[in-house]
């Protein structure tokens, strides 16, 4: 900025205005609506000239304003915003935001979609779901009836958890795509990507379901095991057990009853991956990394390779080995298909933008994400990033 003085300052500020992200906007809108409904008043500070007199309605208003301020500052029970859109075929009927305790119900011929940050929940026709908890580190849903499909993409793997509870079971997850169908007397869970943990509500044995597996939970432990959808089933293995009802947050203290992972005689790549995940959950990256590298050094299904490379990237990034992280994400993007591959591209782009500070590389990676997943769960964020990085040609459609 040498020698250009105040005009250079003005120019820089004009070029890069401070922006408000979608989440902050949604939170602000919701808080404002709540304030209007409650008849809140603005504080008197700064309200003078040109605004007219701002009347305060006594102590009650002050108390309410304080509560409102606390809500705005993030001291509220919710740190995240759930947006929903309820629609009939080809027509949006209603949209808005959801709070903890909100119930969303779809009639016949209606579907609803709820988005929370980068995750998406689709409610099928004739379903009823309640938001039980909506916090920074967890999203808890209760499915009374019908079917819900979940695409859970935590911003930082292992830091956020999601669960879906039905009358028969609780399904816990740390990052995956799966479907829960709640019938009158049984709950069916099928997993498309990643791993979920199903805890029967009758204190039956919890079970981990991997990509391609499906499990039906019925009362009295009359579970019906069904064949895998795909051919990447993981053999039975030790499970990190927790008492029914206990949260399975990955970064929570390891339950005392945890079974330490034990190597199987001839571990398959998928078994190695599951073992690595348990080591990560136990905070032992040093033990997880050799397992993950072993997967990448030997023949393995592409989906397993992609998951392993992504996890390696996450671990490398957390420990500050940024070049290694970029290489791992690039590998995951190369071998991964579907959402796993797309997410790896996005992870690489974000790393390049925010940690490596390489805008040219980041632009290329975000553009690649959009080329491969134009309607992907992160496409809006990718477009925003391209705008932020000055790629005007791809700004169109950014949120």
């Amino acid at each position, binding site marked *: *900025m*040498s*020698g*250009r*003085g*105040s*005009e*250079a*300052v*003005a120019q*820089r*500020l*004009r*070029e*890069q*205005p*401070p*922006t*408000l992200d979608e989440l*902050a*906007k949604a939170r*602000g*809108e919701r*808080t*404002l*609506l709540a*304030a*209007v*409904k409650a008849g*809140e*008043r*603005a*504080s008197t*500070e*700064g*309200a*003078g*000239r*040109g*605004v*007219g007199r*701002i*009347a305060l309605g006594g102590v009650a208003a002050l108390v309410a304003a304080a509560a*409102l*301020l606390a809500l*705005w*500052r993030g001291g509220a029970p919710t740190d995240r915003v759930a947006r929903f859109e309820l629609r009939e075929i080809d027509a949006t009927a209603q949209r808005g935001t959801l709070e903890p305790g909100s119930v969303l119900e779809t009639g016949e011929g209606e579907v609803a979609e709820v988005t929370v940050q980068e995750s998406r929940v689709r409610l099928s026709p004739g379903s009823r779901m309640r938001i039980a908890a909506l916090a920074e580190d967890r999203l808890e849903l209760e499915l009374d009836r019908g079917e819900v499909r979940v695409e859970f993409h935590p911003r930082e793997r292992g830091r956020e958890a999601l669960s879906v509870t039905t009358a028969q079971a609780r399904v816990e997850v740390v990052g995956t795509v799966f479907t829960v169908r709640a019938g009158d007397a049984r709950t069916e869970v099928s997993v498309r990507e990643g791993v979920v943990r199903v805890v029967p509500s009758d204190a039956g044995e919890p079970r981990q379901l991997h990509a391609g597996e499906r499990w039906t939970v019925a009362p009295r432990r009359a579970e019906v095991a069904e064949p895998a959808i795909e051919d990447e089933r993981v053999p039975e293995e030790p499970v990190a057990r927790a008492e029914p009802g206990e949260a399975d947050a990955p970064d929570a203290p390891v339950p005392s009853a945890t079974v330490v992972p034990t190597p199987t005689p001839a571990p398959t790549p998928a078994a190695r991956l599951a073992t690595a995940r348990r080591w990560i959950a136990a905070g032992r990256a040093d033990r997880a990394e050799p397992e993950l590298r072993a997967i990448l050094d030997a023949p393995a299904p592409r989906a397993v390779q992609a998951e392993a490379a992504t996890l390696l990237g996450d671990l490398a990034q957390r420990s500050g080995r940024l070049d290694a992280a970029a290489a791992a994400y690039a590998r995951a993007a190369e071998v991964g298909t579907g959402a796993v591959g797309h997410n790896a591209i996005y992870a690489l782009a974000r790393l390049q933008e925010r940690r*490596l*500070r*390489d*805008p040219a590389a980041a632009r290329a990676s975000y553009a690649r994400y959009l080329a491969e997943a134009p309607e992907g769960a992160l496409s809006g964020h990718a477009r925003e990033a391209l705008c932020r990085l000055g790629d005007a040609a791809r700004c169109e459609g950014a949120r």
Partner: protein
Amino acid sequence: MAERLVAIEGGLSEEEALLRDAAGGDEAAVRRLYQGHVDRVHRCVARILGPADPDVDDVVQQTFLAALEGRFDGRSKLSTWLVGIATRRALDAARARARRHRWSKITEWVGLGRPAGAPDARHDALSQAEAALAQLSPEQRTVFVLHQVEGYTFKEIGEMTSTGISTLHARLKAARRRLDELLAEADLEGDER
């Protein structure tokens, strides 16, 4: 279309009608008001307080609450009127902070001389600009942001802040001079390194 007819029949501009409906608790109107203006209001507040300031969100929220209770006479654009409210509230917050001696800490946080990450000329230049801006008094910063960055006229800024135009001119001149000095110093330090 029906909404427009109602507004015309009632002798109100569309913007006045929107504000009236929002103030009356019409949820859709509140949403439209917020969505239509929050970016501009936020930008103004973040400029005056600094983008990393913890009070930015509060001031934005208070601006909209105040607007719903205020008197918009339609003589200016609704957006200008809202920015006026935002400006006054941001100034109050900045002055309060100056009284608490917090500004210097925030300046250090966002500002000149912070440890650099990997080279990123665009980002560094912005940080330098924001840090230099933070060195101005709240009044100087306000007139510089509104006039030089956001493009408001002195007349509009005068109405927003109830300040005479000659005073605004003097503040802007002082702001420019101070920024020139700060950037010259920064260049000198950079050359020495």
